């Protein structure tokens, strides 16, 4: 057995030379046969896969797309009176209009107003041809998600930026990243590949909805009954009590958000 090992060692002298510095002391290596190589290759494999997983994989997973028109929110917010809701408004039936349609833009942009080449492009390519702009919606949820804006904005009094961030302060449209596999926006998973977040708007996964709902309206009764009030554990939820206005937190309400 040991002879075999030695033959192999000779065959790969070069490799040994190269990595000698990071290896354990020589005598140990001699004592214990091939252990040095084994640990070395383990580390190589380990490190390489970490680089692939954390660095290369996210780059490959998302494709980068540019918005058809570079949109300046700041200018628009200044020009309108009612903030976000001037363009992103609620319809009479309570539904949310989302990204404005051409009809709304045409109110001002019938003809080119300023000198921005983006506006020129907008007027020439879309307004003139009567074609809707194929905006890429950063916060577009998968089809199975039902989200009532009015319940959150009108009834829950939540600010737009809680979920959408300070998009109103942007002067340019950032790159839209699309998950090649699932086909939806990276904003849902979040920029951070580990899925960590600092701000409420960094991620838009189901857990983030749940987190907010739990924080706002959970009734921490069960916790008192439990023997371990462990602070880092999420707060438990209770079945709805009768007459209070409450945020939807029940586990029994999946289809409130899913269709």
């Amino acid at each position, binding site marked *: 057995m040991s002879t075999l090992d030695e033959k192999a060692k000779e065959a790969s002298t070069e490799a040994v030379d190269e990595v000698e510095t990071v290896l354990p002391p020589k005598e140990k290596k001699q004592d214990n046969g091939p252990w040095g190589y084994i640990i070395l290759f383990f580390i190589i494999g380990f490190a390489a896969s970490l680089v692939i997983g954390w660095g290369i994989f996210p780059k490959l997973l998302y494709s980068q797309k540019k918005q058809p028109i570079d949109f300046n929110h700041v200018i628009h917010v200044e020009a309108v009176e009612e903030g976000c809701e001037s363009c992103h408004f609620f319809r009479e039936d309570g539904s949310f209009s989302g990204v404005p349609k051409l009809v709304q833009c045409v109110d001002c942009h019938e003809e080119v107003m300023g000198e921005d080449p983006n506006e020129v492009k907008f007027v020439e390519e879309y307004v003139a041809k009567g074609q809707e702009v194929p905006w890429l919606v950063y916060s577009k949820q998968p089809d*199975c998600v039902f989200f009532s804006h009015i*319940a959150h904005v009108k009834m829950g009094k939540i600010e737009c930026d809680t979920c959408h961030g300070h998009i109103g302060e942007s002067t340019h449209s950032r790159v839209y990243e699309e998950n090649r596999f699932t086909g939806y926006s990276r904003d849902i998973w979040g920029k951070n590949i580990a899925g960590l977040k600092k701000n409420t708007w960094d991620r838009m996964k189901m857990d983030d909805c749940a987190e907010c709902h739990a924080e706002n309206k959970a009734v921490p009764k069960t916790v008192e009954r439990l023997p371990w009030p462990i602070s880092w554990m999420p707060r438990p939820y209770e079945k*709805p009590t009768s007459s209070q206005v409450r945020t939807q937190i029940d586990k029994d309400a*999946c289809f409130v958000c899913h269709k």
Partner: protein
Amino acid sequence: MKEEHKHGKASKFGMVIDLDKCTGCGSCMVACMSENNVPFKKDETNKLDSITWLRIYKLTNGKKFPETDICYIPRPCMQCEGDHGHSPCVSVCPATATDYNHETGIVSQIYTRCFGCRYCMAACPYHARYFNWWDPVWPDGMEKYLSPNVSPRMRGVVEKCSFCFHRYQLAKNKAYAQGRRELKEDEYQTACTQACPAGAITFGDLNNSHHAVYKLVKPDNKHGGRPRNPNAFRLLERLGTNPKVYYLSSREWVRRAGDNYIKDEVKKEHH
């Protein structure tokens, strides 16, 4: 004060189908299919792989000509509450893809959570649950009529009637826009109720004594919602599934067809 107490009380939406009025015309089935993006295939005559959230069964009294009689029973999802507060299907789902909503009393089905084990179908004695054996395919151009309020389902998941829950949500949205939280009776009606040309279907809140459904069946909410109207019955009442779909019939044989009885057993009257 009393009004205030009622405000925010959980609803229990239910349906009452008058079998004397039901003509078996099939409008409810089609209204449901078109409201809920139910797909169709070239051959739908194998009723065991044909998705119809609401299916109309044709019953006969088994007698010879000319004593024969037939009756139609439209069967949506019964939205069972169960004896112990759990519906037959909800408690068995391993992935919480179906659940019982205490606010509305409706059993939901989340297609994207379901991974297609079909345990719930085994649990449902009404065959109200349907599996997508096939990819849903609409002929070229026909996908234009699909409603955005209900996601088309993918192959390999279970689906069922939701009492048009999306209509409840849209009605809520509209109410919110007007600054209200409560819905009026007519604001939330299922597609089948609305379409029924015979007016055989009534829909509303069984917890609300002002609603027509309550007045029709007078549910005994202390006993799982057992109907107190002698002409009202529920399917398989004895299993303790506590459905929220009630049927009315003036014919004894029809009411008896709603449940199993041991031979020569007299129907137990509950009063």
